[in-house]
């Protein structure tokens, strides 16, 4: 039963991340996703200190706000202070992450988070934190409920805003011309990324969120030219990685989240080498028989 809950959590995290990741990599904002995933840390700690619990709603809001603030800061440094964009990203997220770590050390007694957990999460402990109703009925792990709710939100967001998200990602000029606010959808997307990061934080940590944000969409990007197919494929790849990652971790007796990231890397490598249309080994073969 534990295996089931862990794989379910992994798959839910993978679903949210892969969906949003598709937009991030097409907008060339993969590293902004990376930055947000690190920078929500102080938000999580502060929300924790204020509410005194891991109760998810304030935490989601607190850290979600910080994610949006990160995007604001990066934009601000880049646009108003003219810091070059990669440096703006690098300075912002390391700064906020450092604040987060310091806060954890200062309030070590009050905050039930340790530094390692911040980096790679503790998905193995997911089944231990059960949500038990007052009548004593067990509804399953708390985390599954949180991340499940976020997954539904993200899917709704993408279904409802599909046209706008698609347009602002591929043709911002046209989007603006027909009256779609690129800024609004940009910040909505970033809010969604922040929410996902926070919801996944406890289970997979800051850096493995990035693996799931970037690797499955990048793999899918090498396999298809259709955006809808890319969305579906990347979700499937993420879910496969959760399954395979779990068993790899059991076999090596290591971190499950680390193993999931490893598998997403292997998936990418396979697609990079053997993708029917874009794999570098296949493409070479295609080039030769064309001579008549």
């Amino acid at each position, binding site marked *: 039963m534990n295996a089931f809950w862990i794989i379910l959590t992994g798959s839910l995290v993978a679903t949210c991340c892969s969906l949003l990741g598709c937009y991030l*990599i097409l907008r*060339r*904002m*993969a*590293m902004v996703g*990376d930055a947000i995933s*690190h920078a929500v840390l102080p938000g999580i700690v502060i929300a924790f200190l204020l509410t005194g619990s891991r109760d998810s709603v304030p935490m989601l809001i607190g850290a979600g706000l910080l994610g949006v603030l990160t995007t604001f800061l990066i934009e601000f440094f880049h646009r*108003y*202070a*003219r*810091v*070059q964009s*990669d*440096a703006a*990203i*690098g*300075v912002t997220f*390391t*700064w906020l*992450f*450092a*604040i987060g*770590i*310091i806060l954890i*050390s*200062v309030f*070590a007694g009050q905050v039930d988070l340790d*530094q*390692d957990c911040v*980096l*790679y999460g503790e998905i193995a402990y997911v089944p231990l934190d059960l949500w038990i109703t007052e009548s004593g009925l067990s509804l399953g792990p708390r985390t599954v409920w949180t991340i499940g709710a976020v997954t539904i939100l993200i899917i709704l967001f993408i279904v409802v805003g599909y046209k706008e998200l698609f347009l602002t990602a591929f043709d911002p000029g046209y989007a603006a011309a027909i009256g779609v606010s690129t800024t609004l959808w940009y910040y909505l997307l970033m809010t969604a990324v922040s929410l996902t990061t926070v919801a996944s934080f406890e289970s997979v940590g*800051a*850096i*493995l969120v*990035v*693996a799931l*944000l*970037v*690797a499955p969409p*990048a793999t899918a*990007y*090498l396999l298809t030219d259709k955006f809808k197919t890319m969305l579906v494929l990347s979700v499937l790849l993420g879910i496969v990685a959760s399954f395979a990652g779990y068993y*790899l*971790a059991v076999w*090596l*007796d*290591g*971190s499950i*989240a*680390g*193993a*999931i*990231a*490893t598998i*997403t*890397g292997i998936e*990418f490598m396979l697609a*990079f080498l053997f993708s029917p249309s*874009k794999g*570098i080994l296949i493409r070479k073969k295609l080039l030769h028989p064309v001579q008549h």
Partner: protein
Amino acid sequence: MKEFLEFFSFADANVRFVTLGSVLLAGSSAVVGCFTLLRKRALVGDAVAHAVLPGVCLAFILSGTKNPLILLIGAFITGWLSLILIDFITSRSRIKEDTAIGLVLSVFFGIGILLLTSIQHSGNAAQSGLDKFLFGKAASLVGEDLIVFSFVAILLLATTIVFYKELKLLCFDETYAKTIGYPVRGLELLLTTLTVLAVVVGIQAVGVVLMAAMLITPAAAARFWTDKLGVMLVFAAIIGAFSGLAGAFVSYTAPAMPTGPWIVLIVSMIAILSFAFAPNKGWVARIIRRRRNKKLILEENLLKLLYQLGESKQDYTTNRPLQELLAKRAFPAKEAKKGLARLSAQGYLEKKKSGWELTTQGIKRGRRVVRLHRLWELYLTQYLQLASDHVHEDAETIEHIITPELEQRLLEELNYPQLDPHSTHIPGVTKLIN
């Protein structure tokens, strides 16, 4: 205060080690970071920092020891591999650089975490302390580490000095470097190697995640203070070293505090203050400059208008009230009033009962703006073949920018013209006979 003196007397050997270590590490990575920043590849350092972890773990698994040299070699190999992979993925597929960086970074780190946790769970007693690579251990540097790291730090600085000219050209004009026969590939490889070395060493101080800050932040801050590469390198090194020192001091006074994050926090504050307040390039300086330019343009436009109004009757000393000016040109009334007051304080205008009057100085300056405007219009129609009704807007901007030297060049190019494209007289064009 007592602690301050205790710390800075460096009587305690431990304090000496930690301080020297932090300063060397932070300083040397800041120098290398300048080059990666200028090549617009700042985030690559972040990828290397994460990619070092599996190398450290593999080196430990294969050798079974925690000898810093062996771990560093392992770290070096995977760090290097990660950079090669990023280049390979971006050049051989349609994956963009940012995606490739994010991908390599997180997957390598994932593999590292998998190996690290696997080692920890294996019950091997020798492994304790490997996880120090995650968050750094500046506060517990010992003599042996210090020898290795100081050696690498000095090597880094020496290489930078030896190859300074070549690296400079690589950053600013790669094509030119190629043309004059520099081994650009080799230099790129050298810079890659330096970056990896800096990361491998710096990780000891601040750990995997925050290493990126040690490369990017001091360089980004230094960039705001100077345009000279040499000065920038020195500034970055000083900023890095100062943060290292301050971080070591914090962890000395409060041992529970993590040194690495404090170093990063301090260096980030320096960077953010630089972004905001650096002279010339900072955000505030930029705002002030923009305000000043706006004022200057308004003043020149006022003088120009007064001059133009006088042109028809060749009478520049008529008093004109503000209303007359506003009727001719839509200035914001409040700003215009302030502008007129400033001009009269500077001696270009005089306030009379019935309005404003140009002084001799004012006539001269107003005439110059009008002249520049018409010269530029003529230049555009003659040299760019623009229609004469298309040149006004452009001249409206450039008339405030043209320097006396440029004015002279324009006069020569146009052969001291008397009429602009609208057949209006260009005032004050006289050929100097020499």
